[in-house]
């Protein structure tokens, strides 16, 4: 009660400020908070397109979910995507940023643009390109493998290749943004510190490991957090490239939500999957926050 009174007092005191931020908050409430709460409430119902005919099911949808082998597969795949794509994105983009950093401004601009461009094109456009690249008979990938005498691989038709195919497509457009962030982080490192290390006899590799990388830690953690959330929400590439197949080997939680809700018409179960995903991301984000606090970043 005291807290509410204090809050009301705060609002009265700074009402103009609150007025300025109100549109943002109203939009957040209307388009984020309320839909989230509605999804949470739907997860306790057996419900399809006809919302008025919904039946209360308690935790029934969750019970069904945790017995569902496809849900378990999707959960496992989502974790695997995260474990593969996030470290790969960070590693590749960091290496690229370190290679670009010493170049002149024009060259840097060129490479920044070149690596960022796939991200602008978006997952859908890239997926269409990759459908051609992965085509079993006339695709570029199998043509290149053939040059080395390797038998054609049915990239989208066999597990686990379909999983790796999705990873490859995603990596094409996820590395652009981290490269820009890492370059910005590298530009912020004091040249005096690097020069002092050079005077002390440090090699370029030592300067990278003992100065650049530690100084990049805030950017690194930011990239880690945003990339993880992004990969947890992986959907469009799976939709375009594999359709979750073959036999669910490449499906993800978000794709399963889409299928359950919009193909199967099971809004209750889809909402339950959404809630589970939300909890997973929330736990991860809280762990990140704790880690940031502990490491004093």
């Amino acid at each position: 009660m005291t807290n509410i009174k204090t809050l009301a007092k705060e609002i009265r005191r700074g009402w103009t400020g609150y007025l300025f931020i109100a549109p943002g908050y109203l939009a957040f409430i209307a388009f984020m908070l309320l839909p989230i709460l509605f999804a949470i409430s739907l997860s306790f119902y057996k419900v399809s397109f006809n919302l008025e005919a919904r039946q209360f099911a308690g935790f029934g949808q969750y019970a069904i979910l945790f017995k569902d082998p496809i849900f378990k597969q999707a959960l496992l795949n989502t974790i695997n995507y995260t474990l593969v794509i996030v470290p790969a994105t960070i590693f590749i983009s960091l290496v690229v940023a370190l290679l670009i950093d010493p170049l002149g401004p024009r060259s840097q601009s060129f490479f920044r643009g070149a690596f960022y461009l796939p991200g602008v094109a978006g997952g859908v456009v890239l997926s269409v390109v990759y459908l051609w690249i992965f085509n079993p008979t006339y695709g570029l990938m199998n043509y290149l493998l053939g040059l080395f005498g390797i038998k054609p691989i049915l990239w989208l038709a066999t597990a686990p290749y379909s999983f790796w195919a999705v990873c490859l497509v995603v990596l094409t457009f996820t590395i652009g943004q981290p490269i820009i962030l890492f370059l910005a982080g590298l530009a912020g490192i004091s040249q005096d510190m690097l020069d002092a290390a050079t005077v002390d006899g440090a090699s370029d590799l030592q300067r990278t490991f003992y100065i650049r990388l530690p100084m990049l830690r805030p950017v690194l953690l930011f990239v880690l957090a945003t990339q993880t959330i992004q990969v947890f929400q992986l959907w469009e590439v799976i939709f375009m490239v594999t359709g979750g197949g073959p036999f669910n080997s490449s499906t993800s939680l978000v794709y399963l939500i889409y299928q359950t809700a919009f193909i199967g018409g099971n809004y209750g179960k889809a909402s339950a999957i959404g809630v589970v995903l939300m909890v997973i991301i929330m736990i991860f984000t809280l762990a990140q926050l704790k880690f940031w606090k502990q490491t004093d970043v």
Partner: protein
Amino acid sequence: MKKLTFLFATLAILSILLASCAPQATEAPAVVEEPAEAEAPAATEAPTEAPVKEITITYWAFGSEGSAMADGTLWTDWYAKIFDEYEAAHPGITIDFALKGYDASGSTLVVDTAVAAGTPPDVYFDTKFRVKKYQDTQLLEDLTPALTADDIATYDPVSIEGSKSGDMMWSIPADGGYWNMIVNKSLFEKAGKADLLPQAPDYSWTTEEFMAACDAINDPANGVYCTAFFAGSTSMDSATNQWLAGFPECKFFDAASTQYTVNSPACVEAFTFMHTIYENGYMVPGAAGLIDDTTDPYWLSQQVAVLGQGNWYDSITKKSAGEGAIEAFDYIFVQFPNKPGEPVTPAGMSNPDVWGVFKQSDPDKLQAVYELINYMQQPEMVSAIAAGWGKIPVRTDAAFESDDPAVAEPLAAARKFGAYDPYFVNGVPCNYNDVRQAWAEARQAFWQDDADVQAILDGFVERANGIVTSCP
């Protein structure tokens, strides 16, 4: 930890509050009382008595802006003309028409969203399986009053039964594709193997004759495959199921017991035959990852010699050749191969385009909708719709015309062997979209090396029957 507990508690309380604010959960709305003996008048009958009630009918058909009919006319232009005429003949009636797209995976997001928001269209025209999902949630009207006894008598009984749940006619079929096989005759002629193809008047062949022709034409080294399958999505699973018609003992679904029976010995035999095509390398590799759309380029670039879904490939070949995108080639329609000793395979007709009507609260409007549907399902109208989609009208008195003898002759032959529904003979079970997803996954497992046919079909049947059992 306290903050976390507070956060979850707040979320839970707000969710409960929100749920209680949402529209009350109720029993499914009762069916609107049917008007007695609705005899649908002809389009030209204009009411002359009493002031007319203004009624707006929302009519959505699948497609998107720019979708064109087979002859190049935009669907929007065609519908605008039809509805202008209808409105002129029916004062007080306004038709609010729109094409609402769906994606390749078979999703109908726009319609689903409108339904969930409580603002569905009055009339929805789409494929049967997509309309069926709304029937599963008791959202559709019974359309029996929209048809006269004379109308019903003109329908293929298999198709009309497939639009019913019990006695309730939740949809009316307009047109469908006959899933004949299509054969690139030019390829066989070039290879000097045209004599292996089915001949007039029946254009039929056995599975053994099919395999012999396949063996002769298959040339993977030069990028030519005998045939192709696809299982990457739920779309067009009928193209695979149609093969079962050559094995008459095999039933995908048993209407009497409402159970899936595609794991029977006859079906296992059929699928084992199909897997032989895979094992022999007679088909485009990667069927488990291909979808119907990705198969099109193989046909158009003459990399595949024989395919199901003949009507579709006929239409895209004519279109692409007409636009100069491909070099024209000769092709013919033939029947699907039948097991030796079994009758000639009937033509498959599956998943027709149908009209569905969402629940109405105004009896006058419902009556107006019935009249509109009756008008749209008249022979001339469905002929035009079918021609627009490169399909065949379901009404047997609606003309199907083709000036292409390669199409018309075998189709006429196919019709004399009857129609075959690759799925059901008596209605569509509920939750069919879930079953189709399970079927896509089973087919993906099937198109793999060393696939255990019996185990895959057993697994599918167990899952599909579980889905049917969970129906309300």
